[in-house]
């Protein structure tokens, strides 16, 4: 392998990992909701879009850095998620319907409403937050003069990746160490047993939906410095989150992280070695392959014996 080929490969892997980290954060929100409520939230990408518009407004009107706007956008999305769960999804869950998955259809509707509201308020133009550091990067040759290859690490991408890691770590801490986190996991594992143990299942569901929304909201704030924004952007990210959720195993948080990274790296590798036009094809190949070969998701490979159902 020549140094040029090595450089291309390494640079591709770097991009893939950075992208994968962000994908993971988008996926975790969906998988969390999936685990606790057993429904796929197809308004997931649209919630991310809402958070991005919040970040955009904060940036353009108050000059608040998109990364700092997580502190505002995430709580707003948490409340939005709670409201959606409490007043829209819960009532539908209780109704006996002809179609069993009517909550899923409801989330599609919510997504459409959100996208259209955004179109009315902000028009369908593209928006960006042109930050100063948008094209800043670190270069290997700046630190190691004799380096035979040149690698670059984009600053906003790396910051986004690191923040995504911090948020994921905080989530892990919350789910494993706190009382409420344990209750959420209990609800996810067995709703009836949790109910018998005195867990307020109804409340856990509401909190989980809020948490999932807040997570994808922060992912939105991490995305906006490196991407751009328009009202119909939700769909493509819902799709990505969906693929990650299936790949990682429905409801598994660690699975979502691994799934996100795999998807990111796989997409980058297809872009480099098969052509960028093939990247979306690669995404669905992974999706189909996961459904056929590892129907339980990646995590099922690690757990020999699955407890519960």
């Amino acid at each position, binding site marked *: 392998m020549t140094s*040029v*080929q090595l*450089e*291309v490969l390494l*640079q*591709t892997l*770097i*991009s*893939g990992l950075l*992208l994968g980290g962000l994908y993971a954060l988008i996926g975790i929100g969906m998988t969390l909701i999936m685990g606790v409520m057993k429904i796929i939230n197809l308004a997931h990408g649209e919630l991310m879009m809402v958070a991005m518009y919040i970040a955009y407004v904060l940036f353009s009107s108050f000059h608040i850095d998109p990364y700092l706007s997580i502190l505002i956008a995430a709580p707003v999305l948490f409340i939005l998620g709670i409201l959606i769960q409490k007043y829209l999804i819960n009532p539908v869950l209780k109704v006996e319907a002809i179609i069993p998955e009517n909550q899923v259809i409801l989330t599609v509707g919510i997504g459409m409403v959100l996208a259209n509201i955004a179109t009315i308020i902000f028009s369908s133009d*593209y928006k*960006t937050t*042109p930050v100063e550091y*948008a*094209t800043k*990067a670190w*270069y290997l040759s700046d630190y190691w003069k004799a380096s035979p290859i*040149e690698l*670059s690490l*984009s600053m906003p991408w790396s910051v986004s990746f690191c923040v995504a890691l911090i948020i994921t770590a905080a989530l892990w801490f919350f789910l494993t160490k706190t009382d409420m986190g344990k209750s959420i996991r209990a609800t996810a594992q067995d709703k009836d047993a949790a109910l018998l143990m005195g867990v307020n299942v109804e409340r856990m569901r509401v909190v989980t939906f809020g948490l999932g929304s807040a997570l994808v909201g922060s992912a939105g704030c991490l*995305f906006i410095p*490196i*991407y*751009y924004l328009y009202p119909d952007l939700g769909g*493509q990210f819902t799709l990505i989150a969906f693929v990650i959720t299936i790949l990682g195993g429905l409801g598994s948080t660690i699975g979502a992280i691994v799934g996100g990274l795999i998807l990111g790296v796989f*997409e*980058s*590798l297809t*872009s*480099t070695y098969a*052509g*960028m*036009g093939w*990247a*979306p094809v690669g995404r669905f190949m992974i999706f189909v392959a996961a459904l056929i070969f590892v129907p339980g998701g990646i995590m099922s490979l690690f757990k020999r014996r699955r407890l519960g159902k």
Partner: protein
Amino acid sequence: MKRLSLISLLVFVLSLFTSSLFAADTFDLVIPLPLTGKQAKFGEMMKKSYEMAAEEINAKGGVKKSKLVLSFEDSGAKPETARAIVEKLIDTKKQPLIVGEYTSACAKAVAAVAEERKTPYLVVASADDDITQKNYKYVFRQNAVNAHYADGLVEFMKNVVKPKTIAILYESSAFGTSGADAMEKDAQKTGVKVILKEKYEAGSVDFKPLLSKVKAAQPDVIYMVSYVMDASLLMKQIKELRIDAKLFAGGAAGFAIPEFIDNAKDAAENVVTASLWCFKMKQPGAKEYAEKYKKLYGDYPSYHGVSAYSALYVVKDALERAKSWTPDGIRDALKATNISTAFGPIKFENKEGYQNQNFMETIVLQVIKGEHECVYPDSIASKKYVFPIPTWRERR
């Protein structure tokens, strides 16, 4: 009572008389345009420009002392609607000349109707090649065709950059593919080797894998056919990866509009793009039109606007020379057109398999100090081009 009715009858007859008298002193022109739907933005810009031109012409005494009266019909960028509008205009309103439309699909529909009914049609901003390749006698086009869109840029590369290799990146749509194919042909004609030709999905987040491959191939020129957001992301990530080529070139669209510079910021610096028109170029009337438009509507128009604006001057010129204001009279006058407008010189020729096509020089824009400047051809340049361009490392 009887007297009263007599007077009213008199008034009625008189008013009839005067109104018919006035009618002789106006030239009514109904223009089909997309004013709703996705293309409404361009339709709106063209409508404003037509109105500006009509106002100017009327203020200077109109066309042969007749006032030019414009009205607009919304086609919503739907070929069926455009066709119906034009059929009505020719069959019932007996309008001897059709001007307008924007999308190529609509222009094709209108051209077919106009040719069938032997009424001249002036195409203003539709670029699909085959509109003027069908041996139509009554269809005229003043804007450049797709195949010649990048001519100016190709000339610029041949005479200034002299590259040996080129990499072509394009979005996987009809627009991107046709632009990339045209450039590939042009490159082969001028002896430039295409070492990479890759498409991408519009709206992608991360172009770096693709760009690393481009970097490894080390092309002299990187040519990209993209809409605005992909264009800015591409340039930003090219800067991030420090890919140094002799020239970064865009195939109009996303690269030629101010939003590209707003979004890509310093990564946009020195990028060149093909374009049809720029208000900064040395073309008499161009700057005046653009400034007036900006004063009235708050932003600078693109070539769509100036083409519409100039179209009315072409019409005025043809009407003044026409022996009679009949379809055939106006057609013959249009055929002999040879005037200079704010859009550029306009002359309808039959060559290279096109009929009644205006062959205008397409230009090259370069982003210099955060603004689009017209740099090529030299005769109309507003600034000297920057070449060779500094490497990314030098730019800090």
